[in-house]
Structure formats: structure tokens, C-alpha cells
């Protein structure tokens, strides 16, 4: 089915291929993981949801690891990467993209400062007990200020809370504005909706939570420690809630266009029944959204044993992580499939080894986990079993 009464697939002569390819698919995905993971740590630090204590620091470290690789796909995508800093030097403020450099750099500084304040006692302790180069590195890391007392920790805790509070709107800005970049392109019917920033934000939080859940489970399972089921149950409830909002907005966007039956639907209908039928209708909606919606509802609504909760939540988290990745693909690539001629579609082919190929995308998506492994080898990220058990005793038992 072709749009706009076309008899042949007519794309404008310059619409020969998809300009924004896999790199621009994984860029919002990784940024979303940053925002989502940060929000989880902020739940603990700012909103004082105690149940997230065991994952709050891990969330912060994970946000930092993802953050390190958030801008790299953009850099790889640029065809003049050596001029990337022009976005800092001459930011054209009428463009939504121009503030990216400042928002991203500022956010990374905030994350680093928050991590630094959190791990300062560790640096001080290490500097005390080591000698030579190692000691010098730790000394430099603590900026030579060795004070570590109850008073200094109180000051740091308050600062961390303040930074987390500032970080929430900032994380929302960092990611909501990615949605804005797409949502504000009036030339593209599949992108142009004011819901786009909200959809990106909600899916970011969902993907961040789901990814943390998977990481937590794998690490605890690998270390043969006991799971913090109170946290897992709480996480399931929050993930479910945010995903319900996310999925509602995603459906609303399409239903609205369909019911309105205007010029947007003219091209969106053939797009969804044509090239996006399997990626969007079947993949993103029917499999990766509807299934986790039910699976995740079970541990939240019904009384389920701890072990079952663990399986259900992780199964849903895996689907949700894929849902968001596929959603990014469907938005970024799907939108460009509509030729500006409105009378045809542009074909998309996966590349394997190219600059924007699957291999590079795979490396970029793996890299944050490698960095996480390195960091967690250097500093304590997750509590040891004793502490986890201790905490479980204090916490109220879940229904």
C-alpha cells in the first residue's frame, strides 16, 4: 500500500537512503539508560524510597558508565567528527540540537561530582593504607583534602541529595530534549508530535529501571549472594507504573493520528501496514509491550513467591529493554522511511561492518558494561551479603 494515491513508489531523488542510521538509534537508547538509571538513584536520595537503598549506588555508577558512551555514537555518526566541538564554540540557539553539548557536559560533571562525593571516604581510606604511586593517585583523587569525619560526611550527604535533586530535571532535560529533536521536525509526519519528548522520557525511565534490574540480578547471581526481594518488588511496581504511562502515550500518539485522520495518517497508515508492520505492530506493540504489561502486573497485583517474582520481573525487564531499543529504531529509522515526497518509502538495509553497522553498535552497547565491571572491581558498588541480610531484617516484609 502506497501513500497519497501513488501508483508507484516514488521517493525524492535525494531520498536514496536513511541518513540517520543505527548510531542515531542507539544514541537515544544509551541516553535513556543514563536518565533512567539516574532517576532510580534519585528515588532513593531525593524521594527517600528506602527500598532502593541496595541499588541506589549501583544506579549512579551505571548512569555514569552509560553516560560515558552516550555521545560516542553521535561522534561516530558525524561526517566531520573533527569539527564536533563547533557545537560548543558556536551553538546556534535556535536549534534544539545546539544545547546538547552543554546539557550533556554539564550532566556528566554533575554525575562525576556526585560519584566523587559518594566515594570520597573510600579514596581517603585507600590513601591511608597504600603507599607510592597508588597512594598518590588516591591522594590526587581526593584533591588532597583528607578530611573524613561524621561532620564531613553529613555535608557530603546533603550535597549528594542536592545534586540528585538538580539532576532529576537535568536528566529529564537531557532525554526529553532528544524527543524534542524528533518531535519538532514538522517535515516528518511520524516524528512531529508534542508527545514525543514525553514518550522518550517515560521509555527512558522504563529502560533504565529494566536494565538495572537485569544487571543487579546477573551480578548477585554471579556472586551467589542473596537477592533483596523487597527492592525487587518495589522496582517491579515502579517499572510497571512507568511502563503503563509510556505505553499509553505511545498508543495515544498513533490512535490520535488515526482518529484525526488527517495528513499525518495519510502516510503513517501505509507506513505501519507496510515497512513498519513487523518492527512496530508485531514487535514493539504486540510482543514487547503487551506481554511485559501482563507479566509485570502479576507480581504487583498477586501474592507470588520471591523466586517467581525474580523470574517474572527479569523476564519482563528483558522484554522492556528490547522494547525500548526497538522503539528507538522504529522512531528514528521508521520516520525516515517516509520520503519527503509523501508518495513512497525509502528502504533500510542493516549494515554489518560499516561505520554505522551492527558491529559498531554492538561494541558501543557492550562498552558501558565493561566499564562498569572495571569500576566495580576498583570501588565497592553493591553491598556484600551480610549487609544486605542485615537490611532485610529491618525492612518491612512485602505482602
Amino acid at each position, binding site marked *: 500500500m502506497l501513500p497519497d494515491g501513488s501508483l508507484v513508489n516514488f521517493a525524492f531523488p535525494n531520498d536514496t537512503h536513511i541518513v540517520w542510521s543505527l548510531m542515531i538509534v542507539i544514541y537515544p537508547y544509551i541516553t535513556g539508560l543514563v536518565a533512567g538509571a539516574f532517576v532510580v538513584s534519585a528515588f532513593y536520595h531525593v524521594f527517600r524510597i528506602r527500598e532502593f537503598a541496595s541499588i541506589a549506588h549501583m544506579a549512579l555508577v551505571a548512569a555514569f558508565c552509560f553516560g560515558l558512551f552516550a555521545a560516542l555514537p553521535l561522534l561516530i555518526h558525524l561526517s566531520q567528527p573533527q569539527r564536533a566541538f563547533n557545537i560548543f564554540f558556536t551553538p546556534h540557539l535556535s536549534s534544539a540540537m545546539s544545547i546538547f553539548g552543554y546539557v550533556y557536559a554539564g550532566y556528566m560533571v554533575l554525575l562525576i561530582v556526585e560519584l566523587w562525593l559518594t566515594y570520597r571516604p573510600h579514596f581517603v581510606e585507600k590513601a591511608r593504607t597504600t*603507599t607510592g604511586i597508588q597512594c598518590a593517585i588516591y*591522594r590526587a583523587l581526593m*584533591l588532597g*583534602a*583528607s*578530611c573524613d*569525619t561524621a561532620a*564531613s560526611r553529613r555535608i557530603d550527604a546533603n550535597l549528594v541529595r542536592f545534586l540528585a535533586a538538580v539532576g532529576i530535571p537535568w536528566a529529564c532535560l537531557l532525554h526529553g530534549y532528544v524527543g524534542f529533536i524528533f518531535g519538532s521536525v514538522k517535515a516528518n509526519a511520524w516524528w512531529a508530535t508534542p508527545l514525543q519528548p514525553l514518550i522518550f522520557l517515560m521509555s527512558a525511565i522504563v529502560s533504565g529501571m529494566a536494565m538495572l534490574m537485569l544487571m543487579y540480578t546477573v551480578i548477585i547471581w554471579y556472586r551467589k549472594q542473596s537477592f533483596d526481594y523487597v527492592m525487587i518488588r518495589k522496582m517491579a511496581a515502579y517499572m510497571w507504573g512507568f511502563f503503563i504511562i509510556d505505553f499509553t502515550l505511545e498508543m495515544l500518539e498513533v490512535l490520535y493520528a488515526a482518529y484525526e485522520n488527517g495528513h499525518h495518517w495519510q502516510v503513517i497508515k501505509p507506513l505501519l501496514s507496510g515497512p513498519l508492520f513487523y518492527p512496530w505492530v508485531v514487535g514493539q506493540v504486540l510482543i514487547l509491550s503487551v506481554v511485559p504489561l501482563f507479566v509485570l502486573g502479576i507480581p504487583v497485583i498477586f501474592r507470588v513467591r520471591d523466586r517467581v517474582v525474580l523470574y517474572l520481573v527479569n523476564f519482563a525487564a528483558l522484554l522492556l529493554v528490547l522494547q525500548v531499543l526497538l522503539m528507538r529504531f522504529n522512531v528514528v529509522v521508521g520516520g525516515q522511511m517516509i520520503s519527503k515526497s509523501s508518495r513512497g518509502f525509502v528502504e533500510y538495509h542493516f549494515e554489518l561492518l560499516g561505520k554505522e553497522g551492527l558491529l559498531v553498535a554492538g561494541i558501543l552497547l557492550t562498552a558501558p558494561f565493561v566499564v562498569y565491571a572495571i569500576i566495580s572491581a576498583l570501588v565497592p558498588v553493591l*553491598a556484600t551479603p551480610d549487609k544486605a541480610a542485615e537490611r532485610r531484617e529491618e525492612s518491612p516484609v512485602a505482602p
Partner: protein
Amino acid sequence: MYRSLPRDLDLPGPPDGPERLATMTEQSSFFDFCKRGAEKGAQAAGFTCDPSPRSHVYRLVLLLAVAGWAFFWVKDWMVPESWDAAGWYRAAAAEELTDQHDTFGGNVSCSGCHREWMGEFNGGGHSALSCESCHGPFGAHANGLQRTAEAPVDSSRQACLRCHGTTPGRNTGFPRFNESFHRDSLRVPEDRSCMDCHAPHDPTYQTGWGF
């Protein structure tokens, strides 16, 4: 009160007893400290809360301020020289873009020298055409950058049919090649060039029935 951080991490707890006071007297150098640190243990002289428990925060703020200042200094330095702050572009770019050479000279550039053809051309049915449409671009020749001996013309039927073929969309008022008339009535062989009969500069004039 908000709980302090190490509750859930394996970080060292705060040292016991009263908070240590300033021990300014023993100011040790960076590497001295690291040498003595292990020997003297946890109570090493280098660890002080002097001048205040916020000193690390002050140092951080100072570091960030210096880094921020350095960044904006570099930024100011990196903005292109001719930057137009009102229009937000590099003004020199507009200038540079005019450096591109003209590949097509235009009819005016031909008529100055090649007067022998212009009479026939200007009076003919193709007088609205650009010379370079058929003869190819001669901007470099007209600007004296390149001497050219000849101006080759594609004399195939296809060259003429590009404009005079019958495709949907071509206005019926426009002279279109009537294939059946030429083939059946005039019996023009398929391989004959249009230019055998039609003078390209004034195509309504026939050079003769050469078949």
C-alpha cells in the same frame, strides 16, 4: 534526618571519637605523605580537617571554576574570526563560496566572438536556446582559461528527442517529433540524423531532401 551514605556500601565508617582538630604544624608534602602514610597508619599527620570539614568542597568548586573559565576562554578563542553574531554564521563563508568558477558561460559569452553563427542562430527557431545546451559548457573557454578547438554536438536522434520526443506531459503546442509521419509518409530511414534535414540553429529550414 537523612541517613549518611555508608549504610549500604562497604565504605569505611567515620573514625571514632571526637573529630580531629587542626594539626597545621605538620604540613607534609604530597609524596612525603604517601611514604609515611603506611608507616604511621591511620593517624598519619597528613590527615586533617584543616581548615574545615568543607575544604574538599571548596577545592572542588575552585577546580570547577578554573576548568569552566579555561573552557570559555578556549571557546572564545575558537570562534571563527569573521563570525557574524547577528546572523550567526561565518561571514567569510559567503565570500569564499563566490570563488567557484562558472562552468557555463551563457550565450552572452559566445556572441562576443562567434558572430559568424549568431545571425543564423538569432533569426532561427532555436534562438531561445542556450548554446551550451547542445555544444556543452564553455565557461572556462569564455573566461580565457582554456583554448578550445571545436564544439562537438551530439547529432543523434536521441539528442533531439530529449526535447521533441512525445512523452505525456509535453505540451501539445510544443513541436513534437511525429514518428509515423517521418517513417511512413516521408520514408526517412531509422538511422538518419535529424540534422541531415533540419539545420540545428534554425530547424524549421530544411537543408534539402537528401534521401
